[in-house]
């Protein structure tokens, strides 16, 4: 697998322009614009309530923007539903684990493959050869993903029974099952211990090598600084800064927002 060269000269995979979203009178997103090149890991940081999760919800189509647009892979997403966006290649994980608790890990990953498989009601009832073949291929692919994320041992355990660290990884496995071009990770390291966080960093590197572009919300700065090629800082719904981790570290506006004016 060849990963696109991180950085320049490529058409952006995601281009957000003048995105605005109001909740009541509050501007949760205020005229946000940025673009992300394919193959990079982009960190999204900012204090609580800065609008990071709202931005994810706008990109995935849970909310629709009041103004501005999200262009994904060259296509305007304005009229696309959530599932159409997943089909187009946007996948996500949640801040608080949202696995299907009563289903096994393997089944969770198989549900993640929903948009890439097609058998429906009649397929289920008739079990024609193509349905059986599709199911077999799906299981093989799901197992490969569990192998890749190091969760194969838990394939047949109910997802709700796993420790939080494994559940976080499992969400990534499920998101990868839809063959995303862009993967949005909402605080993947929240609730993880130091060892698990390190493993997560390695996993993200591995996913990057597969050519998946990632955006992640992260509070763990050492993790974020280590794995991100680019960072965007939000504060109270507006973009405060954008640049390489080093640039962000030395940005005065960012320092002020984090440490308070003074």
């Amino acid at each position, binding site marked *: 697998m060849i990963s696109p060269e991180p950085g320049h000269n490529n058409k952006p995979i995601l281009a957000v322009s003048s995105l605005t979203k109001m909740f009541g009178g509050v501007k949760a997103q205020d005229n946000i614009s940025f673009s992300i090149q394919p193959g990079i890991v982009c960190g999204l940081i900012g204090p609580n309530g800065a609008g990071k999760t709202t931005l994810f919800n706008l990109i*995935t189509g*849970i909310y629709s923007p009041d103004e501005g647009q999200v262009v994904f892979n060259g296509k305007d997403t304005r009229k696309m*539903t*959530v*599932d159409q966006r*997943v*089909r187009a290649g946007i*996948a*996500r994980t*949640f801040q608080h684990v*949202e*696995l*299907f*608790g*009563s*289903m096994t890990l393997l*089944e*969770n990953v*198989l*549900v*993640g493959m*929903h*948009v890439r*498989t097609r*058998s*429906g*009601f009649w*397929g*289920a*009832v008739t*079990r024609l050869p193509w*349905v059986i073949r*599709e*199911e077999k291929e*799906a299981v093989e692919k799901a197992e490969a993903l569990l192998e890749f994320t190091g969760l*194969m*041992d838990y*394939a*047949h355990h109910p997802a709700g029974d796993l420790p939080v660290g494994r559940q976080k990884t499992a969400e990534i496995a*499920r*998101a990868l*099952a*839809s063959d995303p071009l862009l993967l949005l990770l909402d605080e993947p390291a929240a609730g993880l211990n130091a060892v698990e966080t390190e493993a997560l960093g390695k996993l993200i590197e591995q996913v990057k090598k597969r050519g998946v572009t990632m955006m992640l919300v992260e509070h763990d700065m050492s993790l974020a600084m280590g794995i991100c090629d680019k960072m965007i800082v939000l504060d109270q719904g507006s973009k405060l800064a954008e640049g390489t981790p080093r640039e962000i570290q030395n940005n005065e506006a960012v320092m002020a927002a984090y440490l308070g004016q003074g």
Partner: protein
Amino acid sequence: MYALADCFRLKRQNGSDMDDNKIKNRIEHAVFICIILVLGLFTQNTYYLQIMTFIGINTLLALGLNMLIGYAGQISLGHAAFYGIGAYTTAILSGTFGISPWLSLLCAIGVAVLIAFVVGLPTLRLSGYYLGMGTLGFGMIVNILFREWSSVTGGSSGFVGIPVLEAGKVSFMSGQNYFFLVWGVVLGAILMCRRILASRMGRALRSIHDGEKASLAVGVNTHYLKLQIFMFSASLGAVAGFLYAHFVLFISPESFGFMVSVKMVTMVVIGGMASVWGALLGASLLTLLPEVLHGFAEYEMIVFGLILMVVMIFMPQGLTRGFLDMYEKARKKRQ
């Protein structure tokens, strides 16, 4: 090397896991078929045969509703409407117009599915109480239609003159034949439900029950899926209505009223939501109880209510799950 060996062992374990499940399902089906055969062949008493046939018809209703409530997590308080639509469609087509009942079965299913589509399209966008209210209203409207459209349905005095089912030389007049017909259909429906649940569609369905937010996010078109299951459960209801109409040969609006809808929901809840056998258990209990409690007919509703309360307090997952948990606990204690 060790890792490889571990991996191999794991693969084999998983493989046998899957096979175990398959074998378990086969055994369950075999036991089910044996019980049906024994009950059908050795029961001489027509009253008992009749009760067991009703259990079969109610099982079909509970199976369909269980897919909707137990798996898709959607409540319907008007499901008796589809039961009634199935019964009246076949009654009118085969009774009034003399069409072959088998053809009218197809029409009954078609009508129920079509109505479910039209009703479900807006209603399933509602959720929780609102969906309950929406389906409740739908059930009432359909029931009023049965009652008031007397030139076609016979009104509140009922519809007389439904033909007996026949297939070639076999007449389904006899209690035994009808028993096997109904339970054959139940077996088919159970297999169908299980196939659906094990498929891509079933996984998506169960995922809605576990967390709709996440299933939307992974790209499941939840609204469309709920609609499909609503249509499927409506079609099972229509089949049950068809079997009911040609069994009792006389139908009236009371058999498809609000209380019947509530009874259907009770079957699913008591038997255990999200369990195929739970539907069977719930249907059996709620069909048998009124027969057992014949002497206290006035208190029937009180007893029903009490049972529902006790089950909800002590076994909120339903009897099937409750008994399984008790069994697991007892087994663990012994070890």
